[in-house]
């Protein structure tokens, strides 16, 4: 949607919603039983039309801008805010799943008070009374009696917290984030003198080297970096940027690299030093002091090719390819360690990486020190643990926890548990869920979900990005802001409430001046003009040489032998907060295609050496503990490496999280890194033991090999030209030409059937597999838009997942380590085999070429699915359930299917119909790009395009005519309307 239409839609939202949802839950009338009643509905609510409210995503600290769609008072869909500089209208699957935070059936409706072991529901009034009383008491009992631990929150709210605590003569709140980037921050401090997290102008780079930084999964701001990465890496004028990934395991990010160097765990620093050595040899001018230069030379000189290769297990050739690329690169950018491999050497890695960047480009033009990632405010894990340990010595009277779950997320957080459950401390958890931490608290005080509140949160320092209630409230819960205001100096400010406070502060900070500004800001989801980028003025001569020397002298030996376990945050669950969102559980992991479970990924060699089989259940042991998990064979990890995803294995946190998968953090050492204070996500000395049990994997894939079939195709960058040269003509799978699902696609020599006309439009989709990073956001968007049922792990094992669109993962025939992601949905064939076999016309061809599925007509013979070569049809084996209040999210424009009915991707026909209506009103034909299916809308890398194939100017038509375009199994003459563009493999 272009900026203008967007503003039109959003324009009517915001303000009146502000009226609609009074900030004060008590003075305002109780929330309606129905989210809206026709008696007093917000005046901007037009029944049957979605009003979009701009706000900001809080599913992770990145802070993407979102538009929340509201239908009849119900929030039914969130999409990216096109104006927002961070995500430019795109969202990841976690952002899509924010809805299931609001509507989560396990969300607490009222405060719970722990009384003799059990929980007692109390009213908010009571709870608030108790809170005030407790704070008063605590404050009375001396200094620092009231302590607060909060997640990363917006500046305004953080200030307010501090203010409040100061008032109680207590230290400011401790900001806790499980993924705190301690090592990166320390490295930045050491090298750039900035203890912060600058953002990167990745899109301007021509070479990208990441030492594990998984910026497509979770690292800092995945949606933003996915976009920027694709800007530099997508095929553009016959060339594309190069990307090397140095890590013992792939992750989604590594899977998108041109070359993945699987170094030994902990040896990333060695590679980086090796590179340093090579670069220094070039003798380019660097901004470094002679001393440092000399000293670096010394340190690095030890790491010649051979040594690097010996220490890291990377072949000399691969290392040379890396150095060669770096030497030739014009605007290289090197990224440090990822979250997952925060190993004992991660600081050295990050420092070496920073030095590399500094040497390669002394004025760091690809760094942005203005736009720093907000997550930098988080305290280091060491501080967190330290704080809690101190609590053991003198327990505070009152401990406030704002939406944090350290008990789950901190490896070996025994002291935390102790502190929280310490009777001497009265713990209040501001949390909407009974998670591992809040169950230990004395009072659970649900605060409002971010989609229901006024606030301000900026993923980066500037610009401001605002939050507004996108719907009426489901519960009576107040916002944290309002609560705090109540406790701060009486009711002076609480009268106008947190919203007032917020506006006031923004005015005082001159973010806005005047009501109009404010409205504009709220309407657009913030103030998005970026300030002029400043040049980096580092301290002359770079960091202090001694520090560097000392640092590298203590480089730990990489884990050479034995098994090493890495626990990595995943694109689905992040640090674990995603685990209670059914969509995130149901959508399988991009690499393993396993849903609902936490398999332990191992290399075939490891399996052989350990005598294990894929899919059997093993015990993974470390000195910290052990757990049982299914083995998953993959080439995406290096031999000797065990990789598990963080996020599952909750003992509390609701029906979808509890008992699903396992939590590898339990196996990690409790100690934090002495230098950075960061956690260790990698640990050596791991044993695996057979259990003899066969674990049934809940995987959605059959075979990951293509068995010599032409399905997920790749083309070498160098052989791109040949594609245009040789036109295919033949009858077999290998040489069948591409045929358009249009009359001209019919060849009287091959088709028994005469071509049929379409009425003005022939909808089609193009999938650029070179742009697809496999993040699965499209799938999540599809689940949200089309009311797709959640079947649970048992049914997934049975092969009954319902995903209309699933990003299939294939291994490249030439190299099993090279994965190819293939978003697969209904191909809307012109000769769809599914149609004619149905005895009741349930699937048939409509006038615009789409393959309709008429649910009311379907009697469930399932012949269509049998005959579908792409197996993209899904059957309702049961009537799937949406536990209260999840059903409120259901899209009223899409039928909810009941048992015994076949369903499949409809190209979001409801959106097409809407566009038809609009075009009819304005008496015009539908414009190209006007219809945006949910998957296309949210794709961070714009791999998907949708449009009218009959319009020669349309994007999709142009893509269909791209020499890379092909149709899956085209030789069956189904004439699919989904075109795939071959992934471009470049040898680096």
């Amino acid at each position, binding site marked *: 949607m272009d900026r203008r239409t967007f503003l039109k839609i959003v324009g009517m939202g915001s303000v009146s919603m502000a009226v609609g949802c009074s900030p004060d839950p008590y003075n305002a009338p109780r929330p309606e039983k129905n989210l809206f009643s026709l008696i007093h509905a917000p005046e901007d609510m037009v029944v049957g039309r979605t009003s979009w409210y701009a706000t900001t995503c809080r599913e992770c600290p990145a802070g993407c801008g979102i538009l929340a769609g509201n239908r009849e008072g119900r929030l039914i869909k969130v999409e990216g805010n096109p104006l927002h500089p961070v995500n430019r209208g795109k969202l990841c699957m976690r952002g899509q799943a924010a809805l299931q935070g609001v509507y989560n059936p396990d969300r607490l409706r009222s405060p719970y008070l722990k009384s003799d072991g059990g929980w007692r529901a109390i009213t908010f009034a009571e709870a608030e009374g108790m809170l005030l009383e407790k704070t008063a008491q605590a404050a009375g009992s001396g200094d620092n009696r009231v302590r607060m631990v909060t997640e990363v929150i917006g500046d305004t709210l953080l200030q307010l917290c501090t203010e409040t605590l100061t008032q109680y003569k207590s230290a400011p709140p401790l900001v806790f984030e499980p993924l705190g980037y301690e090592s990166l921050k320390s490295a930045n401090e050491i090298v750039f003198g900035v203890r912060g997290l600058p953002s990167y102008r990745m899109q301007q780079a021509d070479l990208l080297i990441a030492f594990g930084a998984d910026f497509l999964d979770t690292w800092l701001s995945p949606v933003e970096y996915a976009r920027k990465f694709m800007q530099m890496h997508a095929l553009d004028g016959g060339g594309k940027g190069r990307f090397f990934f140095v890590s013992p395991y792939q992750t989604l990010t590594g899977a998108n690299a041109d070359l993945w160097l699987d170094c030994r765990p902990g040896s990333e620093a060695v590679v980086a030093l090796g590179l340093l050595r090579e670069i220094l040899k070039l003798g380019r001018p660097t901004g470094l002091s002679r001393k440092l230069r000399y000293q670096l030379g010394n340190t690095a000189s030890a790491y010649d090719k051979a040594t690097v290769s010996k220490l890291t297990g990377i072949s000399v050739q691969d290392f040379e390819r890396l150095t060669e690329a770096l030497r030739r690169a014009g605007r290289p950018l090197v990224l440090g360690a990822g979250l997952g491999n925060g190993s004992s050497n991660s600081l050295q890695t990050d420092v070496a990486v920073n030095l590399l960047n500094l040497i390669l480009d002394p004025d760091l033009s690809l760094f942005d020190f203005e736009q720093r990632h907000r997550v930098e405010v988080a305290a280091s894990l060491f501080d967190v643990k330290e704080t809690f340990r101190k609590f053991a010595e003198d327990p505070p009277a009152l401990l406030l926890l704002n939406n944090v779950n350290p008990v789950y997320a901190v490896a070996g957080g025994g002291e935390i548990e102790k502190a929280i459950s310490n009777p001497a401390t009265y713990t209040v958890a501001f949390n909407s869920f009974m998670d591992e931490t809040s169950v230990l608290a004395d009072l659970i005080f649900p605060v409002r979900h971010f989609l229901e509140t006024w606030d301000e949160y900026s993923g980066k320092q500037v610009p401001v990005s605002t939050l507004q209630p996108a719907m009426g409230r489901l519960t009576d819960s107040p916002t944290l802001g309002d609560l705090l205001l109540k406790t701060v100096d009486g009711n002076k400010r609480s009268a106008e409430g947190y919203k007032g406070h917020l506006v006031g502060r923004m005015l005082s900070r001159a973010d806005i001046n005047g009501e109009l500004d404010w409205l504009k800001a709220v309407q657009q989801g913030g103030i998005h003009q970026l300030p002029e980028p400043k040049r980096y003025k580092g301290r002359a001569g770079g960091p202090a040489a001694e520090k560097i020397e000392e640092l590298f002298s203590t480089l730990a030996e990489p884990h050479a032998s034995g098994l090493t376990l890495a626990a990595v945050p995943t694109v689905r669950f992040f640090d674990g907060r995603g685990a209670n969102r059914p969509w995130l559980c149901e959508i399988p992991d991009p690499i393993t295609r396993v849903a609902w479970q936490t398999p332990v990924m191992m290399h075939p060699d490891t399996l052989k050496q350990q005598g294990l089989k894929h899919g059997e259940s093993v015990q993974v042991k470390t000195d910290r503990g052990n757990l049982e998990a299914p083995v998953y064979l993959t080439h995406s990890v290096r031999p000797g490496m065990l990789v598990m995803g963080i996020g599952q294995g909750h003992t509390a946190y609701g029906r979808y999280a509890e008992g699903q998968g396992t939590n590898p953090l339990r196996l990690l050492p409790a100690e934090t890194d002495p230098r950075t204070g960061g956690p260790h996500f990698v640990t050596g000395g791991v044993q695996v033991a057979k259990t003899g049990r066969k674990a049934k994997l809940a995987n959605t894939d059959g075979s990951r090999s293509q068995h010599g079939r032409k399905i997920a195709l790749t083309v070498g960058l160098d052989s791109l030209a040949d594609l245009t040269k040789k036109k295919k003509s033949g009858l077999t799978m290998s040489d069948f030409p591409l045929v358009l699902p249009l009359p001209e696609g019919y060849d009287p020599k091959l088709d028994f059937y005469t071509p*049929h006309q379409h009425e003005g439009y022939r909808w089609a989709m193009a999938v650029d597999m070179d742009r697809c990073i496999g993040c699965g956001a499209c799938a999540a968007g599809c689940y949200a838009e089309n009311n797709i049922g959640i079947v649970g792990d048992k049914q997934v094992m049975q092969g009954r997942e319902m995903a209309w669109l699933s990003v299939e993962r294939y291994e490249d025939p030439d190299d099993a380590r090279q994965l190819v992601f293939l978003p697969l949905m209904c191909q809307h064939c012109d*000769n769809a085999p599914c*149609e004619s076999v149905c005895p009741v*016309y349930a699937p*048939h*061809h409509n006038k615009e070429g789409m393959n309709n599925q008429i649910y009311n007509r379907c009697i469930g013979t399932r012949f269509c699915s049998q005959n579908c070569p792409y197996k993209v049809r899904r059957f309702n084996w049961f009537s799937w359930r949406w536990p209260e209040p999840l059903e409120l999210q259901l899209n009223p424009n899409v039928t909810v299917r009941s048992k015994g009915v076949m369903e499949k991707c409809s190209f979001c026909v409801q959106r097409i119909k809407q566009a038809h209506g609009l075009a009819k009103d304005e008496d015009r034909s539908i414009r190209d790009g006007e219809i945006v299916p949910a998957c296309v809308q949210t794709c961070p890398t714009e791999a998907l395009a949708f449009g009218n194939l009959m319009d020669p100017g349309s994007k999709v038509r142009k893509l269909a005519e791209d020499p890379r375009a092909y149709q899956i199994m085209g030789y069956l003459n189904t*004439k699919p309307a989904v075109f795939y563009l071959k992934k471009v493999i470049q040898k680096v």
Partner: protein
Amino acid sequence: MATKYVMGLFKREDQAVAAIGELKASSWPLHRTHSPIPSHKISDALGLKDSRVGWFTLCGGILGFITGFALAIFTSLRWELIVSGKPVVAVVPFIIVGFEFTILFAIFGNLIGMLVLSRLPRMENLEHYDPRCSGEHFGILSSSSDEDREGLLALFARNGGEARVFE
């Protein structure tokens, strides 16, 4: 002067045939013959012509063929839905429908033909009928007035059959 029905019952086909011959020559009427099995010898003796039931079958078949195709074509033309890009009126597959209907209606014609021509069901048949005729006896039904009954009985006896007089 009471005429009574007389049935001659024979254990052997050829006896019956002979008796029929005599009876035809004689003045006594030959009402009908019953037999447990179809016997061409007897039909020869009776000089029956070919059954015309085949025409019913044929008509049924033709009607069925038309019906089958008509149904398929009519129904597909109601909405003209395109499936798998196939023509809306797809002759090749419709042949199957046409065929099945042909058989079905032909059979109906066949059955109706028989019922009509041999006037079934009809319970009056069971008057002047001897149950043994469905067993092992060939029955020949004739009738006679009281005085010349002896002759008729004799005729049956002569051909090795027993006679039954229906009172």
